[in-house]
């Protein structure tokens, strides 16, 4: 663990002063987006104030199940990740690429103006910071740059929250992506709830973060505060619901395209694509061309897509991956193996969403374990 930086003493924001965070961000032109309860789950949406946060709620997660429960306290961040991820703000599920109109001698293509409001993401978990960093590599790190993503990303202010508990399907400790935020945030909060005291340890991770912090009422942390924050992280680390042995995982999967387990999982998988829709790193998209009734105006839309659909691999003559076996293998091998070759990092941050939201409780950590246990050396 990093020793506390003596030049930047740990700082505390009292719960009573927490609403000020919204005011300061609004003053800087940010719309806050963050967790809120809707339809029985904690989702990410625009928030007008702290009263919309899921105070006093927690979640219970396992393969194929997600349930909200009341907590004994009024914690604002006492849960883990839900079905949404920040991906929907940076890489929207549907975005128009261009509009085109017929003209006297053909057609013209009108470039799209990107709407990139200044958003403050409140409550970004460590695994989610890593997921954002991974999508940064996909959309910004290559030969081509996704200009719309770049603009949205530049306009996002990230407020991390260090997890004080882990969920039933979490395994960020295995993926070295959490539970404590170490990089990539503007501000980081650790919620302290002890002996009737409710406060947040708050750290700045960027110059803008430091400016926002300077505008907030804050005071130096006591030794007890830092101890409580460290205990929260230790608690989360100790209670990961899942684990994944990543040793040699790339070669393990590359070596096993014909492992019988792929057939076994394909017999259970519904090819519903839920896992890819909830995954914070999955980046695949499709395009759709539409015209109005007159045929004078056309639009091209880019929409989230999934390697689990049959049409995904369509070429003239049929799909390259007609079987669910080939599609599940593609997904898992991409996530945990070929992603490393493509982007220098795993495509999985151990958030557990794909396990929780799979209708038949397929668990990638289990699938990898089964392959590892019976892999020819």
């Amino acid at each position, binding site marked *: 663990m990093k020793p506390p930086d003596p030049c930047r003493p740990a700082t505390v924001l009292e719960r009573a002063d927490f609403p000020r965070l919204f005011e300061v961000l609004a003053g800087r032109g940010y719309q806050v987006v963050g967790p809120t309860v809707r339809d029985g789950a904690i989702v990410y949406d625009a928030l007008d104030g702290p009263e919309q946060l899921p105070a006093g709620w927690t979640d219970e997660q396992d393969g194929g199940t997600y349930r909200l429960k009341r907590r004994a306290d009024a914690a604002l961040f006492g849960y883990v990740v839900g079905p949404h991820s920040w991906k929907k703000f940076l890489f929207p599920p549907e975005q128009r*690429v*261009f509009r*085109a109109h*017929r003209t006297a*001698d*053909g*057609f*013209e*293509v009108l*470039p799209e103006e990107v709407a990139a409001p200044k958003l403050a993401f409140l409550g970004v978990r460590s695994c989610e910071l890593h997921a954002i960093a991974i999508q940064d590599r*996909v*959309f910004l790190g*290559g*030969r*081509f*740059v*996704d*200009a719309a993503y770049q603009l949205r990303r530049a306009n996002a202010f990230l407020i991390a929250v260090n997890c004080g508990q882990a969920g039933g399907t979490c395994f960020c400790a295995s993926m070295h992506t959490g539970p404590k935020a170490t990089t990539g945030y503007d501000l980081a909060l650790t919620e302290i709830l002890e002996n009737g005291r409710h406060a947040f340890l708050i750290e700045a991770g960027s110059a803008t973060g430091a400016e926002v912090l300077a505008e907030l009422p804050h005071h130096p942390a006591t030794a007890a505060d830092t101890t409580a924050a460290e205990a929260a992280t230790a608690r989360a680390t100790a209670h990961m619901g899942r684990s994944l042995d990543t040793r040699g995982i790339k070669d393990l999967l590359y070596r096993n*395209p*014909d492992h019988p387990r792929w057939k076994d999982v394909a017999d259970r998988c519904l090819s519903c694509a839920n896992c890819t829709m909830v995954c914070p790193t999955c*980046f*695949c*998209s*499709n*395009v759709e*061309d*539409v*015209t109005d009734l007159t*045929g004078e105006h*056309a639009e*091209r839309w*880019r929409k989230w*897509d999934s*390697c689990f659909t049959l049409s*995904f*691999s*369509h*070429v*003239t003559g049929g799909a*390259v*991956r*007609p*079987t669910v*076996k*080939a599609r599940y293998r*593609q997904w898992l091998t*991409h996530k945990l*193996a*070929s992603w490393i*070759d*493509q982007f220098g990092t795993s495509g999985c941050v151990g958030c557990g969403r794909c396990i929780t939201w799979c209708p038949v409780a397929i668990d990638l950590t289990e699938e990898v374990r089964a392959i590892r246990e019976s892999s020819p050396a």
Partner: protein
Amino acid sequence: MDPTIESPARPQPATEPMLPDPWRVERVHAETADTFSLELTPVGGPRPLAFSPGQFNMLYVFGVGEVPISISGNPEIESPLVHTTRIVGTVTRAMGKLKAGDLLGVRGPYGSGWPVDAAKGRDVVIVAGGLGLAPLRPLIHHLLAHRADYREIALLYGTRTPQDRIFRADLRRWTARRDLQAQVTVDRAVSGWTGHVGVVTKLVAHAPFDPSNTVAFVCGPEVMMRFTLQELQRRGVPPERSHLSLERNMKCAIGFCGHCQYGSMFVCKDGPVFRYDRVRSLMKVREL
């Protein structure tokens, strides 16, 4: 690693990567009953699209959709831009209805090209099946324009029937040349056909090249390429001097949509032209 086989700096699109640029259809040429070539010039002044042989463009038919199509014209001349397309589905059918004067959206060029430098000072064997000749045609133009840089050049071309041959005027010119050994074969002959009969892979065994000093370029249906590469290897052309062009579903051509993945490769940016030794193990996996 053979340094000459690394991909050279390749031409890049000049426009916004996701936006098609309207080009005017100057001429439509019917190659076969279902295949046509379009000659295109940029709208609003000269904006030539420099490309390497083997690269492709994304072609957008207004309101219908966008598909990857290889550039099939001569890379040595600036204009026109040529694409040769077979009608197989929605977008290509709509493209086949375009007439001179109509507009087509173009963005590109994308992907890797045939590594011509790797072939300098060596024999070259080009094996094409059906429409696979389209991405190889700029390569042939390039080799002939720089003829002195290469030793023997053999072109082996196979189609199902004589009617399926594309670029027939070129084929006539090429077969007449003495510095290019061009052989055409058809799977099924019809009356009047006096050339080879049989699959193109059969021609590899006796083609005029020295396997110990040959670079091979192969494009066609995937099964045809598998058998051709097998035959080339049997004759002694090593996988690291054999190249092929792969086809996968493509929605973006710039590495964002994920559709073209092939193992750890993105066919749109790491390919479509691959050195055979880099994909040989992948080609053994079914439904990859």
